[in-house]
């Protein structure tokens, strides 16, 4: 049973991170926006649903809606002043925005209701698991996996539909570095960038919501910029500009990340060193893919119109 539970855990993590990477892929892979603050959406989604379901004791569905709304709104707001900026400025502005979200939750413990040892650096526990009372302890993870997969499927279908539509073609023309092309066709580049960030934010928030309810505990330490770069590794390895690639990338990175965890049983190495080496490998993987197979595992189908 332990092994099956572990597989279910892996599948849930893959599903949650696949939603995040499909969302980042819309921004980076399709629109060319170097969002180094993807974790902000994840964090906002997790906290929004916690506040709604725990502090205000509302339903899980309201939590999902709040998560998606808040993270989408954040994407929208952060994109307004930055939409005209150059790509390298985007990277640092979004990275900093992600850090500010984390610093906010680190400093303001009242947002999750306050009380001793609660909120701020202590994190929040007891986040309710949706429909928990209807299932036995052994079957619940399977049910939760179902929720995650349905969310992933919906995310995939919606974003795929968007990227194959005229909207998606405008995004790609923005990515190709030529604002003039989009402008010549009467498209307001700035508006499209803002939309890509807002839509990316909505789904990033959804992933955060699913994460919070799965673990039942969140704290600002879980939303460090490192998470963003793990999602980046997923998009890059899987193949940017390609939704299937983003999902495949998250499966591979989660498998790699978790399989190396058991290496310590076979190699005499302590936990911290192993954790560091794992991240060294992820860094090197990003560099190697960028150098030698820039299109990733699944290539984007480029069509000539």
């Amino acid at each position, binding site marked *: 049973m332990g092994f099956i539970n572990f597989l279910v855990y892996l599948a849930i993590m893959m599903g949650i991170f696949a939603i995040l990477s499909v969302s980042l892929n819309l921004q980076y892979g399709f629109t060319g926006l170097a969002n180094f603050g993807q974790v902000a959406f994840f964090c906002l989604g997790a906290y929004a649903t916690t506040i709604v379901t725990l502090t205000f004791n509302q339903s899980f569905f309201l939590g999902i809606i709040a998560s998606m709304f808040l993270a989408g709104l954040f994407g929208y707001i952060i994109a307004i002043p930055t939409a005209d*900026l150059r790509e*390298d400025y985007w990277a*640092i502005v979004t990275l*900093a925005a992600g850090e500010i979200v984390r*610093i906010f939750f680190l*400093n303001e413990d009242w947002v999750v209701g306050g009380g001793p040892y609660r909120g701020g650096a202590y994190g929040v526990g007891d986040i309710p698991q949706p429909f928990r009372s209807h299932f036995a302890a052994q079957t619940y993870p399977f049910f939760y996996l179902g929720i995650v997969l349905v969310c992933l499927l919906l995310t995939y279908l919606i974003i795929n539909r968007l990227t194959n539509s005229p909207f998606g073609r405008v995004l790609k023309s923005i990515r190709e570095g030529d604002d003039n092309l989009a402008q010549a066709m009467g498209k307001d580049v700035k508006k499209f960038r803002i939309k890509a960030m807002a839509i990316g934010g909505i789904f990033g928030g959804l992933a955060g919501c699913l994460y919070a309810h799965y673990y039942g505990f969140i704290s600002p330490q879980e939303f460090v910029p490192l998470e963003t770069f793990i999602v980046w590794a997923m998009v890059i390895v899987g193949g940017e500009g390609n939704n299937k690639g983003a999902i495949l990338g998250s499966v591979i990175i989660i498998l790699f990340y978790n399989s190396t965890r058991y290496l310590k049983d076979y190699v005499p190495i302590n936990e911290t060193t192993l954790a560091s080496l794992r*991240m060294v490998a992820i860094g090197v993987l*990003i560099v190697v893919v*960028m150098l030698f197979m820039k299109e990733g595992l699944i290539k984007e189908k480029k069509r000539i119109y």
Partner: protein
Amino acid sequence: MTFTQVIINSIIRASELTLLSLGLTIVYDILKFANFAHTEFAVVGAYLAFFLSVTLGLPIVPAAVIAAIATGFLSIAIDKAVFKKMRNSNGIIIMVTSMGVAIAMRNTVRAIWGADAKSYVLPLERPIATQWFRITSLQIWIIVVGAAAMIVFHLLLHYTRLGKAMRASSDNPALAQASGIATEKIVTYVWFIAITFASLGGTLIGMETYILPYMGFAIIIPVFCATIMGGIGNPYGAMLGALVLGFAENFGLYINFGKILNLGGLVHFSRDLFIPTGYKPAISFVMLIIVLLIRPRGILGKKKEG
């Protein structure tokens, strides 16, 4: 804290930031990508200096200098292994790659030296105290090295063949190459100069507090903000940005906004209102957004795209 003390602290912070932002900006100027691994080189330098001084027992000054030179060579090696193959790629792609390099470097440091804070063994000393401010001799060193970096960069860019070649390569790489300037050679020099100063900066910051594998990440946002605020690619902009940010970070926490809201007694607002210290990292970001909204290419940014 007295007003003069806040000014002194601002200058110290500006000197630290300058050491890092100058290098970031010249690498950008020549190679046209934002190097997210820049501050990680500072961390590697700080740890090498720690290894030389604490583990091997060298005096701190030669240790810092040798570490800086070694880190400079490391940056050249990484350039040859990774970035050289991407010279013709889009800036975003190189930037993302540099992020991968940064993650690998940071965690290599963590794997070797562990995740805990380390500090250099420095003689205890009493700060020089006057009526208006206190300053340690280390802090004077930080200001001196920061100022020296500014002077060296100015002289280098305007009075040496290398500097002229650097400016030519930055303006028009193809033309520079056609005129017989070996751009690849210049790239090597630029990496070396940029990273040795970054390494010195990292070591000095570490000497003032302690060193951590994650300190590169703690400083990346202020360093990038200083660089971008002044106009990325412009060394004088990097100096100005560092100065503006050094003052903003320190005065942001010092100013009592309650008194300002009071408008000299016009409005009755008697509460004290300070920015909480937990938000200090946010100041640089807010400054950056304000500057970019007013001048999208930075304070001293060039009008035309490079």
